[in-house]
């Protein structure tokens, strides 16, 4: 089993409480199903579409995210899957696709010990 991060891009907060409740229920159902099947390391969190980016050697602070709305990371989860194909398959039920958004699936990297050879 390996850990993969799902980066949900293009997550949109609904305008009305009614739609919000429906959307919440969809995400809940999806994540609960994954969780019940043992595929969730961490449910992660949704993210607000605003923030700051600190950048470069000069540590310049700019308002971000600077990408287009549909590409902004709207949240993340950490998923357990056999391999990347399996992780891709598991993402197919994600409600993000109804928003026209995307799931970016990234295996968690390993930083090895420097054994000083």
């Amino acid at each position, binding site marked *: 089993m390996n850990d993969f991060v799902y980066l949900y891009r293009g997550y949109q907060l609904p305008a009305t409480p009614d739609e919000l*409740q429906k959307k*919440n*229920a969809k*995400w*809940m159902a999806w*994540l*609960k199903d994954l*969780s019940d099947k043992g595929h*969730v390391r*961490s*449910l*992660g*969190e*949704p993210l607000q579409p605003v923030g700051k980016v600190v950048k470069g050697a000069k540590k310049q602070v700019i308002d971000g995210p600077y990408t287009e709305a549909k590409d902004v990371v709207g*949240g993340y*989860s950490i998923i357990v899957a056999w391999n990347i194909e399996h992780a891709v398959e598991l993402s197919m039920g994600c409600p993000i696709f109804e928003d026209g958004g995307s799931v970016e699936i990234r295996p968690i990297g390993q930083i090895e010990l420097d054994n000083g050879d």
Partner: protein
Amino acid sequence: MEIEEHFFRHEFGRIVATLTRLFGVHNFALAEDVTQDAFCRAMETWKLRGLPDNPSAWLMTAAKNRALDILRRQRTARVSEPELTRFLQSEWTLAPTVEEAFSAHAVKDSQLRMMFSCCHPHLSEEVQIALILHILCGFNVKEIAQAFVSSHAAIEKRITRGKNTLAGSTKLFDLADADLPSRLSSVLQALYLLFNEGYHGSSPEAAVRMEPCQEAMRLMNLLIEQPTLATPRSYALAALMYLNAARLPTRLDGSGNLVSFFEQDRSSWDHNLIAEGQALLNLSASGTELTKYHIEAAIAAVHTSASSSEDTDWAQIISLYDMLIAIHPSPIVALNRAIAIAQLDGPERGLQEIQIIHDLHRLASYPFYPATLGELELRRGNYPVAKAHFSTALSLARNPMERNFLQRRIDTCKEG
């Protein structure tokens, strides 16, 4: 629109059980505080702006929002049941999980689980009942002390002991737990005692109190709505409650005096309750288990189906009492059996049966033991003996209704 009499009481049980499920049972005190707080805010707001259209929904929403705040602020500190905790720890799932916990179905489920938690095997029956009244029926310590003829301090001690035991668990009792059958029988016993406390009240103020009976029936209804809990034994207890409750109002006359069973106005028995009780009794008649609830309900059904005392099938009642004594020997049951025998075979036979009751001394302080002797002697025309028994009974009476009732019997002896 007005709030119904027991509105806050019943809402208390619903909300506190739901919050306990969310916060974890070890945080029961927090759940209680949040519920009280929601009530205080409701009172203040409603005083200013008038009653909302749906007070119950208003309270639930207030409690729900407060729960969300608390879970957000102290997310990692709150550990409820493991399967819930993970969903309370992520914003993806927090709000929908809280929403779901406050759904009608989940609220009922939490109340049931709370009821089962209150009947923890480490707690005595009297602590279990005090806890149920306090948590699920919203009775305060003073009201429970009145219901049980106990001191404020004694009830407070019981409730504290009960809450400590509750808070020692990690989660509310799981209705899928392997211990369910034994826990269910403790819950039924507690509801049975609660009902009886109202029906044969030992209260100094009143011989019959509707409230404990109504509360026991309300919780009983909640229980049999749940298919896994609607066992034949549960149906039998529900039937017993309905059939006895049907006769409850006629146990007192217009001036609040206790009325002898034989003088009750049968036309005032509640025929809807009798019909429901009979239907429940039919539902209880599946499976092989025969419990004291089955037999007591069957006895009540023989009474409610007879149009008069003379018309009653006393032979059947006697044989039901025989069965009851076989599985649940008790001097009070034996006394009732003797009364039925007297109905069928005359007062002499009744008195003989009383003489041979095992453990008769346990009835020494029970006023209806000498009262029964008095009643049977009265029927034999032994007025002085009857009067002496009634006088003994009078000295044991526990409330003004019993005293009035027995005084009137003494007067009858004098007339004779």
